[in-house]
């Protein structure tokens, strides 16, 4: 095996070396250096191709094919629902000014928060995702959800279209110094004003935006206005929908 043949083989697959090639590398310093370069590229290629995959994919596949329910943490689900219930109780007991939570709108905004937390309880591991969603996937995800990404929303560690209650939604997990923030965009949900509910365990914000609402869920007391603003500023209606009068609703929000 001569140097040319060795270089040819290395350039096609530097990780699967034949015995002849290995023998050549032992004797040839230049080819050894070339092999190291190709191996470094192969490693980089492998890392690049290993894009993060959707959380819970196997469960969804099994649910569809076998009807097997995904393995869930009952404790977490109970905890989340208890948190919401406690939060609702706190809100009901604490007097609030009508400007902050308009009475006629409140219950429905709670409903959006409720179905969002219920959805999160079905995917309790998503906030733990640590792999950053690459920009091409991010843009594609927003396009699929009928939105356009026009700015930087921040670091997204999970992205998936999910049905939340009756709404088509985009489910994101945003990185934040204080902890992960779940952001669900509920498309075509009604504009009911902004709701900020800081419950005993979790903070939930419902923020009308464009033709739906963002529902942000974080830990109790966590400041998430930066993430809220970043999402609102980074996301727009695609031009074709905007041109058809699919109007945004930002002008009516109460920030």
């Amino acid at each position, binding site marked *: 095996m001569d140097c040319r043949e060795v270089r040819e083989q290395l350039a096609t697959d530097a990780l699967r070396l034949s015995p002849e090639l290995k023998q050549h590398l032992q004797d040839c310093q230049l080819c050894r250096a070339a092999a190291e370069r190709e191996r470094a590229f192969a490693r980089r*290629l*492998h890392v*690049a191709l*290993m894009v993060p995959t959707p959380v819970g994919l196997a469960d969804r596949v099994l649910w569809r094919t076998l009807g097997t329910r995904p393995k869930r943490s009952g404790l977490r689900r109970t905890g989340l629902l208890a948190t919401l219930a406690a939060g609702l109780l706190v809100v009901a007991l604490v007097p609030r000014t009508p400007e902050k939570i308009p009475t006629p709108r409140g219950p429905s905004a709670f409903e959006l928060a409720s179905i969002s937390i219920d959805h999160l309880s079905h995917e309790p591991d998503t906030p733990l995702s640590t792999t950053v969603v*690459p920009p091409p996937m991010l843009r594609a995800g927003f396009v*699929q959800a009928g939105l356009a990404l026009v700015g930087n929303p921040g670091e997204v560690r999970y992205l998936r279209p999910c049905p939340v209650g009756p709404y088509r939604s985009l489910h994101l997990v945003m990185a934040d110094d204080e902890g992960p923030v779940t952001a669900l965009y509920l498309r075509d949900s009604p504009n009911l004003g902004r709701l900020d509910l800081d419950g005993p365990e979790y903070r939930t914000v419902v923020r009308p935006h464009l033709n739906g609402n963002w529902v942000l869920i974080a830990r109790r007391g966590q400041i998430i206005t930066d993430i809220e603003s970043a999402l609102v500023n980074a996301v727009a209606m695609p031009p074709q929908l905007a041109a058809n009068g699919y109007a945004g609703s930002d002008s009516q929000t109460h920030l």
Partner: protein
Amino acid sequence: MFGDLFRQRRFEALVRAHNDELWRLGYYLSRDPMVAEDLVQETFLRAWRAFDELREAATAKAWLYTILRREHARLYERQRPDTSDDETLFDRQEDPAPGPEDFGQIDELRTLIMELPTKYREPLVLQVIGGFSTEEIGAMTGQSANAVQVQVFRARQKLKEKLKNSSPREVRHGLS
């Protein structure tokens, strides 16, 4: 009854073992994360229906990849891969290109991979993610091993060239 349960357990193990890499293949074929999930769902649905045909566990991976590729082709009515590259691999190749280990970010590399024509992108993904040899990819895609070798080689060369061209001047300087 226990036979059914055993069959289901085997299938569940298969799903958990391969769902991620199949999704990645679907993603790089379709360039769409949502379509990728649909492809994985359809692949496993078909696999479950034909599960009894799978005799050897060792061949399961190639079997699943083949189903997913067919599903993708069915979705997009893809043309048969252009095998015009079935020629001597390195006829036009002078010295191998310099290694790009010092330049290029992973994000940039991902973008460049997405920009590769399907005939180069697919065998590259099958090789790197699937771990298949050029012979196996050839069997899967209905091409000769030589044609696959050419495609993989050119995919890598294109990526290296693009990375080199998009690298900072000082890095290129050291490699030119």
